[in-house]
């Protein structure tokens, strides 16, 4: 039996025992439901808000706002004949009003002149709707006193959408979309961070399990400790990949099958891509007269332009390198920690120094994404203990390949070194029962000849 066969046997056990667990099944099902839920909840909430028709009474003592409130499908206004607010307040419970707006006659000069009375908590949307309308009306009046005509104002209003274009040395132009890059950067960084912690601690728990149930010595009389360690790390890594694949598959599945059936309105609101592109195709050839279509066009062409500006090949390749590099690097350290203790409770003193760089990386990621070319971003993406997260946050912004390659090389060299050291600690640690290990002791294990 070759070393490869042994590792394969170990991987199979590590993988099978984990994916057959109930917790894996539950995570696989609950995860996508949560994700799909996260995607539709805002729209669903908004929809819930809107479906109830709200009749709002307006008591206006300034006499400025008759007919000024724009009505939407669900928000209607009724203008009361006088502004006797006390009377309307006391009758409020007998009315069918959702809310009562009182506008004092000093509204033009005092920002606190508007009150909204209701027996419920009026939603932020309703409040915004009302305050926007009042502001708009007052602004218009004020502009008039300065002698500015409304038509002039309309003509002056300008809508700018910046198209950011990146110039490469060869003179090639690529559109960039900061938001899209941010999203990809965050997603990739978090995914790596999450896997390192989640799967890394699974590796650690697996090592502790083998130690506490005393099977370890039976196994390492057949396989080398290094083979066992690598088999475990690879097996757990494959479990994480399987979980991701299931999540992505099921989330898409739920998103496109279950939700349209259960909540057709929500589905329409949250799945606009197809519709928009269709609209774009149609109107693209016809005359673009209508303003909304034009706006939409700008948006969509921005989006499409940006998508074509994203170097997906580079992102995917870097993701694979930094995902595996980071996971292996940390999993080896977690395995070494697991070998040095007798129970999970004892891991604390070793966990913090090892996980600190990851925590720094995830905190710094926010800053790095805002400013991917900063010295902080550069150095954190070179240090191998933070680079898996930080570099992935930078890659979508199209930083020089030389930096990505340098960082990857540093990561791989560190990974080999750390794994070699972790294996030395591991093979001594797994046979130390009932001993409290210290950093000093672990350092000594590195010098043992085994």
């Amino acid at each position, binding site marked *: *039996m070759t070393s490869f066969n042994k590792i394969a*046997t170990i991987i199979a056990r590590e993988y099978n025992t984990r994916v057959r667990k109930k917790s894996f099944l539950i995570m696989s099902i609950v995860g996508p439901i949560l994700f799909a839920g996260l995607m539709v909840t805002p729209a669903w909430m908004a929809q819930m808000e809107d479906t109830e028709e709200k009749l709002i009474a307006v008591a206006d003592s300034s006499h400025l706002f008759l007919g000024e409130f724009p009505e939407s499908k669900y928000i209607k206004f009724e203008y009361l004949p006088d502004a006797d607010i006390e009377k309307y307040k006391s009758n409020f419970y007998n009315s069918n009003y959702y809310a009562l707006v009182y506008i004092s006659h000093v509204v033009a000069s005092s920002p606190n002149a508007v009150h909204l009375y209701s027996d419920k908590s009026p939603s932020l949307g309703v409040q915004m709707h009302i305050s926007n309308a009042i502001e708009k009306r007052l602004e218009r009046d004020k502009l008039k006193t300065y002698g500015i005509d409304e038509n002039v104002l309309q003509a002056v209003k300008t809508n700018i959408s910046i198209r950011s274009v990146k110039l490469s040395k060869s003179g090639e132009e690529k559109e960039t979309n900061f938001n899209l890059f941010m999203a990809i950067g965050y997603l990739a960084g978090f995914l790596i961070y999450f896997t390192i912690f989640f799967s890394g601690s699974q590796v650690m728990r697996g090592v502790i399990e083998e130690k506490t149930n*005393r*099977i370890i*010595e*039976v*196994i390492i009389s*057949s396989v*080398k400790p290094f083979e066992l360690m690598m088999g475990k790390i690879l097996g757990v890594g494959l479990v994480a990949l399987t979980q991701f694949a299931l999540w992505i598959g099921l989330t898409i599945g739920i998103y496109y099958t279950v939700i349209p059936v259960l909540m057709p309105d929500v589905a329409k609101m949250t799945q606009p891509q197809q519709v928009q592109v269709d609209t774009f195709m149609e109107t693209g050839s016809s005359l673009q007269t209508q303003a909304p279509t034009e706006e939409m066009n700008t948006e969509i062409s921005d989006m499409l332009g940006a998508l074509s500006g994203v170097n997906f090949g580079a992102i995917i390749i870097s993701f694979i390198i930094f995902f595996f590099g980071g996971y292996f690097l940390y999993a080896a350290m977690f395995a070494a920690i697991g070998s040095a203790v007798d129970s999970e409770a004892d891991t604390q003193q070793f966990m913090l120094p090892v996980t600190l760089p990851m925590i720094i990386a995830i905190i710094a990621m926010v800053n790095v994404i805002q400013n991917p070319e900063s010295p902080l971003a550069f150095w954190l993406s070179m240090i191998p203990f933070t680079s898996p997260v930080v570099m992935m946050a930078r890659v979508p912004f199209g930083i020089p390949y030389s930096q990505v390659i340098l960082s990857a090389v540093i990561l791989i060299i560190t990974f080999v070194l750390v794994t070699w050291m972790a294996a030395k600690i591991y093979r001594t640690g797994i046979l130390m029962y009932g001993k409290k290990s210290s950093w000093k002791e672990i350092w000594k294990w590195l010098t043992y*000849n085994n």
Partner: protein
Amino acid sequence: MSILQAIDIDKQFSDHQALTKVSVDVPEAKIFGLLGPNGAGKTTLIRIINQITAPDNGQLLFKGKPLKGEDVYKIGYLPEERGLYKKMKVGEQAIYLAQLKGLSRTDAIKKLKWWFGKFEILAWWDKKVEELSKGMQQKIQFIVTILHEPELLIFDEPFSGFDPINANLLKQEILTLKEKGSTIIFSTHNMSSVEEICDHIALINKSKKILDGPVEAIRQQFKTAQFECTYQGSYTEAAQIIHGKAEIIEHKENHQVHYLKAELNPGIENNEFLTLMMQKVKITSFSEVIPSMDDIFIRVVKNAN
């Protein structure tokens, strides 16, 4: 012919010397006892033989050739610290461990079914290990250790934690394995089990080997001039005639049968003593006192310390 030779093995851990120039020679198809007090270095030596740790100095020969990685398939090891995955099913787990010892899946299943049948534990196949008692788990560990039919078997404190019934079963199986030609290294600090089953021993104390050889030879080597004798007749007359030839250690009388334990003075042979005794009393039995391994163990370790 020896199946395993360890030559001048040194092993140093940071705070102590585990083995100092230890050499042992394990003859083929025998049961070899590796004895010594707790912490003497037995387990370290066993781990070195199993290639779990490497010696700092020294050499290991397996069937005359330097021990190499593949030799683990010819060795079966039941460690002192032994256990199983609690959440895994018995059969699945046994197959896994057998595969790691180089058996194919089909081979492993075939052999396991045979052994499970022999031990009447086939019903456990699909149970989780945590559902089994400790004694049951030990049976499974034993089966897994010998399943790949290794030429050399190593048992580290095999009887610790076994109930008497399982301990006896284990002892019988060990003897059967020896009959079939397997060599067995048997590590323990419990001497009484050694006399019954070991052919050879090596005694390790404080990292050094202080004694080794065939069990019978060692006991002969450590025998003193003590003997036990029963006779009928007068104690006074007997004591008179052997005076100056032997020192009486103990004397008892029970229904005219006398028991005498004594030590011959230097230069006096058994026959000379018997000739004197026969003149006065009727001898019914005579035997030399051969020290038990327990006595030897205590004596040697005391001297070494």
